[in-house]
């Protein structure tokens, strides 16, 4: 039995400041039981059903629906040769997609799943009726709806607060450092935009994925019911299994620690083209420099000088971020 992430109960003085400091600050997953139990959506799901609740507010904005043949049993995944997928995708107005997804799929029938649905466009009334006091309100929630499904083990580059509305969801989590043992697939041919772990998404196959065996004991498992929430830091790998005939979840994505408009993943891509095919010894040299200036395991690179001598390595704001970014952009445009 895998270990559970840290688990707390909603209430108990959990306000926005405490959430930012004690839950988000440590950058580790936390289950918050009953965080959204009072949501009208959650109460409706237990009563007349989530379809009855969402249908009146649904718009005709098109959404991308995953449709799986009965034999894949809701495991949306690559086709065997990794050139395509084992399911099809259809664009459909959200209101119509709801009707298809939130009625249970019968025996031997195709299953459907829709993820990352922006409520701002598809269900404009949702956010106000189901508020999230732990966040600043600038992040409109997204909806994840479907029949029983298995969403392949992937990561996101934003902080995530996932709130179950209907059904049960099991999150299987691996820390970011597990990346090398997860047998991660292509970063551009993806099912829903994010690369997935091949080893953690398919049935166990130690012959094919021997390094994955090292992660036994490292995985965390969280079982969420209606009203429960999971805070998941960015870059944490997660496989999501939803079990009920009809499942619904809302989530919020935000960057808790942004210094500006630039995503760290973009700098990774720039480093990839600039560094990744250099000789191993040179890469090791650059690794020392990246550590020194960027990852800073031993603190600030100019800690031995007074702060008024830190120049452009001083605090990023108010000026240094913009000055350095201007230089980078100008260099990229001219080279």
């Amino acid at each position, binding site marked *: 039995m895998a270990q559970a992430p840290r688990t707390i109960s909603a209430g108990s003085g959990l306000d926005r400041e405490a959430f930012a400091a004690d839950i988000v600050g440590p950058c580790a997953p936390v289950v918050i039981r009953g965080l959204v139990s009072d949501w009208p959506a959650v109460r409706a799901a237990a009563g007349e059903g989530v379809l009855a609740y969402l249908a009146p507010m649904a718009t005709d904005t098109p959404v991308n629906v995953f449709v799986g043949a009965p034999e894949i049993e809701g495991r949306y995944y690559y086709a065997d040769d990794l050139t395509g997928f084992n399911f099809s995708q259809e664009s459909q107005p959200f209101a119509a997609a709801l009707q298809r997804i939130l009625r249970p799929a019968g025996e031997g029938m195709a299953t459907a799943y829709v993820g990352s649905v922006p409520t701002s466009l598809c269900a404009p009334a949702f956010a106000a009726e189901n508020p999230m006091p732990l966040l600043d309100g600038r992040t409109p929630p997204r909806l994840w709806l479907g029949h029983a499904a298995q969403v392949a083990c992937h990561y996101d580059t934003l902080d995530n607060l996932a709130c179950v509305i209907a059904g049960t969801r099991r999150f299987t989590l691996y820390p970011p450092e597990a990346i090398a043992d997860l047998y991660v697939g292509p970063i551009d041919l993806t099912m829903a935009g994010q690369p997935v772990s091949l080893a953690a998404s398919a049935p166990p196959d130690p012959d094919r994925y021997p390094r994955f065996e090292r992660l036994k004991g490292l995985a965390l498992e969280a079982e969420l019911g209606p009203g429960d929430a999971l805070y998941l830091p960015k870059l944490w790998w997660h496989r999501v299994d939803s079990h009920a005939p009809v499942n619904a979840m809302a989530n919020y994505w935000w960057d808790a620690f942004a210094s500006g*408009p630039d995503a760290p993943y973009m700098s990774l891509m720039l480093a990839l083209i600039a560094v990744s095919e250099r000789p191993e010894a040179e890469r090791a040299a650059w690794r020392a420099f990246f550590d020194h200036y960027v990852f800073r395991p031993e603190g600030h690179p100019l800690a031995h000088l007074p702060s008024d001598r830190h120049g452009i390595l001083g605090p990023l704001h108010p000026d240094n971020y913009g000055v350095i*970014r201007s230089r980078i952009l100008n260099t990229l445009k001219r080279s």
Partner: protein
Amino acid sequence: MTNIVMLNSRNHRDLKVKAGPSASLGDAQRFAAVIPGEFTQMATVCPLFFSKDAETGAFYCGAMLGFDEGENLFLDGDAYHGHRPLSLQRLPFFTAGPDIAVDLDHPRVGASGGAEVFDAEGKPTAYLESVVGSLRQLHAGQEQGKVLIETLLKHDLIEPVDLDIAFDDGAHHHVRGLYTIARDRLEALADEVVVELFRRGYLLLIHAMLLSQKQLPALIERRNARKLEASAGLRF
């Protein structure tokens, strides 16, 4: 604060005014009013728009000189690149009917290195003569601008334009409250209206205004370049 009084040689014999461009003396404006006579000259270096006067709500023509409050990208220390709009040149003087008024609290007044307004005999100096010329030009131009705007409004040729600009330093600006020529409605004008606008010289002004929008990228680059100067010590 302002302290605007009528100018006369009796009370202002010793008045000295620093006339040159300077950020600290009133030129640090991101948007400055321009008159039709300045359109073609300004349109080759910066975007021209209509804006609404904060007090009266009436449209006026202006040149976009920068983006942040107080950012005039044509001002470099005490040097001005290109034509300095008359609405900036004339400070601290204003027209008051046939007379000239001066804002005695304006930072140009009494600043060191200022020019004399009246000579020892109380006669206007060459500097004041040039100010009178500018004010006369400005006053006539403001009237022409009003008639131009009335004519454009009559033909429904003014429409709002929103600018969303991303700068190299990562800043985003959402500029609201600017207006420009409604191109679609311009193209749909009846022939006789086109001829009328042409004969009155307005077609040239309309096109200068439309073409000036092509200067927006250049203005953005001016700002990017300023930020870039600050990184001169960074080598890679």
